[in-house]
């Protein structure tokens, strides 16, 4: 698969488009990186370093050219308690471990297991993420004045209405510049980014996280890293499919998993927080004409250059402007079509989606919501499959009773199946016709044995017919064993 030609094309096949879109993305990344840092409870510097380092590393090792990765809301939300309880150094260590887990995921080619995450869980995931991003902004409104509210409103108005007039400049950036300008000129006295913590004035440097290297540390960070790794890959692979679809091209999911891992390892050592692919930014990038690796590299480099050059101005951005941007991000993240179609989709899917959202909103942990959703989907699936129908045919001449069994026989369905058998029947012979059924496990074989045994006690002969190949192999394997030991 690897070829020099392909790599050259991925890097330099679209130089002009990639550089322009990279600049647009860099500008849109700044407010988000700052806002996500504030959600996680760390200095804006940590998110900015992360977005810089992840975007640059992914440009080289990612699996999906044209996709943008950086500090994200989904990841920031998972870090809140780790940062609050143990501090930044543990977050950096957790970031490195997250990367290692993701590399392993990619090396063992586990991307294919993503299909075990049902669609309703993914929809619940993005909707929950949108709701959490929105609610995380509410704290900025507490005890504020009408000046702050109107600045938020102005930010949103510019973001949504400017594209009607021109699409040449990103409306988010214009909104931030205008609102910052107004706040400075009016001397409005609203809270600014500078009030939230320090911003970087230098390039990040390589440092080992300052933590004790022992089992206790591992026990603290491992659960966080696992959650971060899973959520990061979930969002990255979803974004990857979206970019695949937008550009009508295919890309390597396992390479991207490894790439996300390398990016997080490097980022942890350079003082950044764990991140992943960003749906919104990737869509902006492709829409702005970026399709190659160069777009991600440009985005990272321009982001860092801007921050260092314009440090004095960035600290003066009012929180109101950032809150406006984050509200826009949450509206854009939410899958509105799922609300519109909720009455059309199967009820179990709708329940799974709502349960994922409710779990996440309650626990503030996307990974718990996803696991709850997968578990519930599995239960629903087993429940749907566990419906077994049994038809009874009585043959007067032969005094035999035939049960025609339709469905899947496994642990969840055997009870339902056995309940439909009449053990008191006054017959000479019972035939179990399983030609329209499939025996899946030990419980299925056990149920057949149990029926044979019960009739056997009344000296009624039982014959099993129509076993398909797999089922009969299973009967031979398990049935033989249980009979030998049983009676």
């Amino acid at each position, binding site marked *: 698969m690897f070829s020099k030609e392909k790599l050259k094309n991925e890097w330099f096949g679209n130089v002009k488009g990639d550089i322009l879109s990279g600049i647009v993305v860099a500008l849109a990344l700044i407010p988000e990186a700052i806002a996500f840092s504030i959600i996680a409870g760390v200095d804006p510097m940590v998110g900015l370093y992360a977005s810089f380092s992840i975007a640059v590393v992914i440009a080289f090792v990612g699996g999906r050219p044209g996709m943008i990765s950086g500090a994200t809301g989904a990841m920031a939300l998972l870090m809140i308690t780790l940062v609050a309880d143990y501090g930044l150094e543990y977050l950096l260590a957790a970031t490195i471990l997250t990367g290692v887990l993701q590399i392993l995921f990619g090396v063992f080619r586990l991307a294919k297991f993503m*299909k075990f995450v049902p*669609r309703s869980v*993914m*929809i619940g995931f*993005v909707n929950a993420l949108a709701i959490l991003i929105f609610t995380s902004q509410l704290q900025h409104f507490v005890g504020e004045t009408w000046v702050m509210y109107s600045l938020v409103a102005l930010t949103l108005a510019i973001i*949504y*209405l400017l594209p*009607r007039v021109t699409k040449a400049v990103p409306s988010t950036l214009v909104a931030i510049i205008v609102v910052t300008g107004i706040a400075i000129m009016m001397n409005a006295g609203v809270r600014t980014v500078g009030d939230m913590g320090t911003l970087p004035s230098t390039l990040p440097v390589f440092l080992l996280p300052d933590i004790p290297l022992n089992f206790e540390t591992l026990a603290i960070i491992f659960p966080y890293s696992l959650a971060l790794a899973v959520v990061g890959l979930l969002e990255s692979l*979803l974004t990857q*499919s*979206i970019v*695949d*679809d*937008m*550009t*009508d091209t*295919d890309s390597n999911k396992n390479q991207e998993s490894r790439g996300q891992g390398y990016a997080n390892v490097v980022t942890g050592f350079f003082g950044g927080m764990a991140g992943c692919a960003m*749906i919104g930014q990737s*869509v902006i990038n*492709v*829409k702005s*004409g970026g399709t190659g690796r160069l777009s991600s590299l440009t985005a990272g480099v321009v982001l860092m250059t801007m921050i260092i050059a314009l440090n004095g101005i960035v600290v003066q951005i009012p929180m109101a402007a950032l809150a406006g941007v984050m509200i826009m991000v949450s509206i854009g993240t939410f*899958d509105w*079509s*799922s609300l519109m179609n909720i009455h059309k989709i199967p009820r179990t899917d709708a329940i799974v989606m709502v349960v994922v959202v409710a779990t996440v909103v309650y626990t503030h942990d996307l990974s718990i919501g996803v696991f709850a959703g997968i578990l519930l989907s599995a239960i629903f699936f087993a429940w749907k499959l566990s419906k077994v129908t049994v038809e009874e045919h009585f043959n007067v001449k032969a005094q035999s009773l035939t049960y025609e069994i339709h469905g899947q026989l496994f642990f969840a369905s055997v009870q339902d199946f056995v309940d439909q058998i009449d053990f008191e029947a006054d017959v000479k012979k019972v035939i179990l016709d399983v030609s329209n059924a499939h025996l899946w496990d030990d419980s299925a074989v056990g149920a057949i044995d149990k029926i044979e045994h019960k009739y056997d006690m009344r000296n009624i002969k039982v014959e099993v017919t129509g076993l398909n190949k797999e089922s009969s192999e299973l009967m031979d394997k398990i049935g033989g064993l249980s009979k030998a030991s049983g009676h």
Partner: protein
Amino acid sequence: MFKKILLAIDGSDHSRRATEKAVELASLNEGASIEILYVVAGNKSKTDVLHSGDSESASRKRERMVRQFEEQVKEEGIEASHTILHGKNGVAEAIIEHANEGEYDALVLGSRGLGTVQTMVLGSVSHKVMKYVKAPVMMVK
């Protein structure tokens, strides 16, 4: 002479009506053909991938949807083909580019019939198309 007709659809009921009109137009000329065009907007990719699992299944679903329209045209005895484009910049832009590149005698499309506020936020595809497509445009309400 309307021999080569481009029909832009979005899968909605408006598209159904537009298809009926395109068929009427094509029936005027012996040997007229209709090319059905469906543009996947950037934001639509997100919804489609989310609801179908991956890009491949999303593409299959779209193909099936577009084929239904193609069948509707073929049932009337009119030659039909289809094109699915991925409009990175926007639906209108992709339709305009495709329409102006090919030599079409007419473009038929349905109007979503949005209100003033919706048009302000979502933008009007039909308005832009009317303005920039060189061929005659028929908008079906």
